[in-house]
């Protein structure tokens, strides 16, 4: 058989909303507290307690809805999703089912080849997170920590619009960028603040009907998502080409073995018995509330990128890179502000180049950079005013990164100031020419390429400090025999 397969992917992203307190109770949401110290009566599902909705959670969901051009539902309803599990204290999860707060949005993603694609967002709904099961050291028992129970989640459900693992990753990164721009989620994937389930199916190219899908649960890094989807696609194609059928099921990705395996098959099909939660009333959102939230929307990634192209003359690629994270964009803009828009390209190159490389090396986020935007701007200002060359600047940057001193202090202490005095440069040129009579003769005989050799020698003797433009100029004259020799 030789068939062409098409992959179809939809993602359900769970973003923990960055509120102080839980969605339905006044318990703290801070990560990493001692077990069950942030689980209070409402979170524990104690007899008699009742939920009351956090305003901030609604505001954040509306903010997200507006950012993806969705409809914000004027009336949305909380429902109970009933199932028994130890991390779910009440035996039901409060979620939104038939009437979610955000409906029908979309988001544009940029692929590696620069192509753009729009992914539909079916809905985004509010719900409460569950607790955690810990499996070690309890002799046949699991320990349950309910600190996370009741943390607000925004579940963002995409249309099955993605056709490859790379597209899925690009979409997830885009959402990741967006929720951080909006300051509604810290995006911390290690801590589980941002995670995703992927619905994956394959079908023959040209076929309209979707294939049977499998859901891969709890993917919490961009790398795993790509690997898990690729693995799952290969598995499904193998099964079908081997004459088998895909069973609709939930699978778990095992990064150690790079494979997905079915979750222990539930003893029965899930029947969640959704019904409207009688303890909560319909959430009515007035237009004035939506307008207020709209007024607080920050500049979004696409808008920022467009502005960088227009105001700073950056290439679309550079603008896209620098706006992919709000923090990076802010850093870059602070450098430009200090340096002047005329030098935006220089700032962009340094932020994307040396700074980014150093951050990567040390595993740092830009917020933890050893060189602040003002410090970098001060360094670049010395290039602009020709105190140092770009090459020397790299050396200064490394020194700044290592010991935190200012650019000027390092330039001063190491005597790296560029030599611009024509007399001093001529003196060096004379030395070099005197020391290399053979090369001089060859050059004068027509071997133009030796010019580079002389430049290199002059720079070497000057310790790299001679102004390159002046060296070029003066050397040319001297080699041609003009001026004294």
């Amino acid at each position: 058989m030789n068939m062409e397969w098409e992959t179809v992917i939809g993602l359900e992203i769970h973003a923990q909303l960055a509120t102080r307190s839980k969605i339905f109770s006044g318990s703290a949401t801070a990560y990493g507290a001692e077990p069950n110290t942030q689980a209070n009566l409402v979170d524990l599902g104690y007899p008699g307690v009742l939920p009351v909705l956090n305003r901030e959670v609604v505001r954040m969901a509306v903010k997200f809805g507006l950012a993806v051009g969705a409809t914000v539902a004027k009336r949305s309803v909380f429902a109970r999703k009933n199932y028994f599990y130890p991390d779910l204290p009440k035996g039901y999860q409060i979620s939104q089912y038939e009437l979610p707060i955000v409906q029908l949005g979309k988001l544009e993603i940029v692929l590696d080849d620069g192509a753009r694609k729009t992914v539909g967002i079916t809905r985004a709904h509010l719900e409460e997170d569950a607790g955690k099961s810990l499996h070690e050291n309890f002799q046949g028992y699991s320990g349950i920590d309910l600190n996370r129970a009741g943390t607000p989640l925004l579940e963002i459900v995409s249309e099955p619009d993605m056709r490859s693992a790379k597209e899925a990753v690009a979409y997830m990164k885009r959402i990741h960028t967006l929720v951080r721009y909006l300051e509604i989620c810290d995006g911390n994937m290690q801590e589980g603040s941002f995670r995703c389930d992927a619905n994956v199916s394959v079908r023959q190219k040209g076929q309209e009907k979707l294939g049977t899908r499998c859901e891969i649960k709890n993917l919490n890094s961009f790398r795993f998502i790509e690997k898990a989807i690729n693995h799952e696609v290969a598995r499904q194609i193998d099964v079908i080409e081997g004459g088998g059928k895909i069973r609709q099921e939930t699978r778990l990705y095992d990064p150690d073995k790079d494979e997905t395996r079915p979750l222990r098959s539930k003893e029965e099909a899930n029947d969640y018995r959704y019904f409207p939660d009688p303890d909560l009333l319909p959430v009515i959102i007035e237009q004035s509330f939506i307008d207020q939230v709209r007024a607080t929307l920050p500049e979004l990634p696409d808008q920022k990128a467009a502005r960088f192209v227009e105001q700073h003359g950056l290439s679309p690629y550079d603008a896209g890179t620098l706006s992919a994270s709000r923090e990076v964009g802010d850093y870059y803009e602070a450098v430009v502000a200090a340096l002047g828009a005329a030098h935006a390209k220089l700032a962009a190159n340094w932020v994307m180049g040396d700074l980014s490389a150093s951050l990567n090396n040390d595993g740092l986020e830009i917020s933890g950079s050893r060189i602040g935007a003002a410090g970098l701007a001060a360094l670049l200002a010395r290039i602009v005013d020709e105190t140092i060359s770009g090459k020397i600047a790299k050396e200064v940057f490394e020194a700044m990164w290592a010991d935190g001193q200012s650019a000027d202090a390092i330039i001063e202490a190491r005597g790296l100031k560029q030599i611009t005095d024509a007399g001093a440069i001529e003196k060096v040129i004379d030395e070099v020419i005197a020391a290399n009579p053979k090369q001089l003769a060859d050059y004068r005989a027509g071997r133009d390429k030796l010019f580079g050799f002389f430049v290199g020698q002059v720079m070497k003797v000057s310790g790299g400090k001679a102004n390159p433009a002046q060296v070029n100029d003066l050397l040319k004259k001297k080699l041609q025999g003009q001026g004294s020799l």
Partner: protein
Amino acid sequence: MHTLTLAGISAGIKARRFSSVEVTQHFLGRIERLNPALNAFITVTADQALAQAAAADQVVAAGKGGPLTGVPIAHKDIFCTDGVLTTCASKMLSNFVSPYDATVVRKLKEAGVVMLGKTNMDEFAMGSSNETSWYGPVKNPWDLSRVPGGSSGGSAAAVAARIAPAATGTDTGGSIRQPAALTALTGIKPTYGRVSRYGMIAYASSLDQGGVLTLNAEDAALLLGAMSGFDERDSTSVDLAVPDYTATLNQPLKGIKVGILKEFFGKGLEATTESLVRDALEVYERLGATLVEVSLPNLPLSVPTYYVVAPAECSSNLSRFDGVRFGYSCAEPKDLLDLYTRSRGEGFGAEVKRRIMTGTYVLSAGYYDAYYIKAQKVRQLISDDFKRAFAQVDLLVGPTAPTTAFELGAKVDDPITMYLNDIYTIGANLAGLPAMSIPCGFVEGLPVGLQLIGPHFAEAKLLNAAHQYQQQTEWHRRIPAGYA
């Protein structure tokens, strides 16, 4: 002293005729003597009661306090009470010490009320005879071989037997009014949202409402006023000022329109009960009311509607009882499923299981629309019927229960017959309306209740109408033999 009303006890304390400690000791003594035959209390909090009474006496001595300072009452064991066993009459919660107070309990504490103890009830408030309690049935003080009604049967028996001067109750389908009727008490279930449900262990969240069982309408006005009001911990509680219900008790009834609910006088209503209810209507006529017959065509569907909605909500509300964080947990579970199914199977009684299973079924895939959504729609029709009626009349009047108190064990084997006890009371819960029951006569020594139903937030009008009736009649003053 034990035949005094709340208002009478309050006046006595204020006038220093007796202290709160003396009243409290008197009732604790009666509980000790008389409760064993009645089984009205699950827990008696004697030490705490005496401490609260002593504190109240100090407040009174300092010339402070309000109308309820130092007055003892009992709480239905569905209300969470901080540091006190709170069982909901279930084996499931037979070891549960609540770490917090229900809002109702807190408000009454703040008003200076003394808690005598926690009263028996149907398990998780599911029942109409108080026979589903894990702590055994409650006996009706009017005839110990008969039921006191339910689910607030312990509260009703305690007040009727004058071993507590008043008690709280909850009413999901008639659980305050039906026992009040069967024990010759005044019982009121206010408008849904009037009394906070925080800390009231949920049976059916969209129907449950707290209220009181008292000796007369004046006491009901006093106690209800103190426990009502907005609570920021209950999203369904209504942010509306609570009027002083005692201030309007004496308003004349001249000119009010009273609707006679046609559907309440059909088959199933005992003739003797009907005739007493009709007598009561004549009293209202004499008081100046105009009687109008009104029809609520969808009302006969209220019992089937209730037996979809209430079990559906209960099946979900009771999922939290899983043997992990509180309550009964089975011994040596062999795996997770075993922990769940045995803790719940052993912890819940037969009626609770029956309702959980009914509710699970009506919410399950393939049945949700036919049962649950259908019931929600009929609920809307019933609510609309009431709305139309209240466009014509101020109050609706009819019987509270179709019969007087029945023999213990008479209906336990037939759930449908048992469910039909609430045929007249359920409508008010479905529509969220305030409703009350007041004694209107006796048949062969057994009390009969008159039910008054009002539009939303018409508690003051209901209490006024009840009080005016009680100025004309003596039924509410009768005390069962042996308890005077």
